């Protein structure tokens, strides 16, 4: 296995870039008297975060809950749907075009439907996250299931494996790298779907999610809070992606070239 640079050498370069960019932004805002309603000073964003740690953590938790539920739902449903699609070419031709629908439907358009069916709040927001993140899971899993090594399929057939055994012991494990790829994309999209969902159907008040904070802060001209919420939402996305990467590494560490760098 090739060498991985130590944890410090991995984190230090991007961290340096972040610090430098923040400092440069602070200088720019002060030097050019950029109006607060256009772009807040990084220092005021940080000050806001330092002044409201508990509130922001609660908001983060609310958003994270919905994002996790939506992501897990799309992971499970996506893989099952892909399995269903790979089984029969007729089913595939009939239904695959409609999975693309999940990719393209604008949440804004269906928000009223979400409120009517699920009531505003966690369920609707999680559904929004689910809808937005479903397609990559289906597409990548399906690609993986359909590209199983033909020779291995022959081998299984030679030994009289049932279709179920072929699926469970061959196709699904072989598709794991593809599934992980799909989940990587889905993780980021789930966070986006959650935040957008909160814009539209999130609940205000105590424990409101990050998306709700963003919309309120924008309306009330509190750009420091706005940017703080956006920053934390991005970090949530990063965290979920890191979790998927970690899971991918654990699953694939023994066998796949992509996990051995």
């Amino acid at each position, binding site marked *: 296995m090739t060498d991985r640079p130590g944890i410090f050498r991995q984190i230090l370069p991007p961290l340096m870039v972040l610090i430098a960019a923040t400092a440069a932004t602070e200088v720019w805002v002060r030097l050019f008297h950029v109006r607060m309603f256009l772009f807040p000073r990084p220092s005021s964003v940080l000050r806001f975060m330092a002044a409201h740690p508990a509130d922001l953590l609660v908001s983060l938790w609310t958003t994270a809950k919905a994002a996790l539920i939506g992501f897990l739902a799309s992971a499970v449903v996506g893989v099952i749907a892909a399995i269903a699609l790979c089984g029969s070419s007729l089913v595939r031709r009939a239904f695959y075009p409609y999975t693309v629908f999940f990719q393209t439907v604008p949440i804004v358009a269906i928000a009223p439907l979400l409120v009517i069916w699920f009531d505003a709040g966690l369920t609707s927001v999680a559904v929004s996250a689910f809808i937005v993140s479903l397609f990559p899971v289906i597409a990548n899993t399906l690609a993986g299931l359909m590209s199983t090594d033909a020779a291995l399929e022959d081998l299984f057939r030679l030994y009289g494996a049932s279709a179920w055994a072929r699926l469970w012991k061959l196709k699904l494990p*072989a598709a794991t790298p593809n599934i992980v790829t799909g989940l990587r994309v889905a993780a980021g999209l789930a966070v986006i779907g959650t935040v957008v969902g909160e814009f539209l159907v999130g609940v205000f008040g105590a424990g409101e999610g990050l998306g709700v904070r963003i919309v309120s802060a924008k309306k009330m001209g509190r750009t420091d809070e706005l940017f703080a919420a956006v920053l934390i939402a991005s970090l949530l996305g990063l965290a979920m992606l890191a979790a998927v990467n970690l899971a991918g590494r654990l699953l694939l560490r*023994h*066998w796949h070239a992509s996990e051995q760098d």
Partner: protein
Amino acid sequence: MIAGLDQPTAGSVELDRRGIAFVFQDAHLLPWRTVLDNAALPLELMGVSRPRRLEAARGALQQIGLADAMQRYPAQLSGGMKMRVSLARALVTEPKLLLLDEPFAALDEITRQKLDEQLRALWAAHGMTVLFVTHSTAEATFLADRAVILTRRPARIVEDFRIDLPGERTAALRADARFAAVTRLIYNALERGGA
């Protein structure tokens, strides 16, 4: 065709389909399974219980000389070792007929010769029929009791003869004059067939 993976254009294939094992040109191991679980795969697919199939797999791997590598994964094995796992997997069902399709072609000369010797020893131990496809005249000479030479497509039989060499094939045999003679015979037959 013998394995049932393809259909003949003329003639027929008559055999008892049970008890066939196959070794491909690539080892085709499942990369997410250990060597032991790979070797046990055929028995697993046939529904054999876990303890019994693992025992059989261990036995086959020991025969092939991979007892130390049972918990390793294919990504950690050399080409030759992967092929040996593939062989062990083929043997684990105690087949009556073993089909091999240029299994050692991708390996280096020395590994290839060693595996030929190992295969011949396994055959001596188990007694199953072995059908081995190769493009190497030396390999054919070393391994076979009987050689069938085919033309290129559409394949027809050019020659079908017994190989006149001692039953016990040792490494030293390769330097023997008789060995070279048989190799020559096979080579000529191939030329006649236009291969």
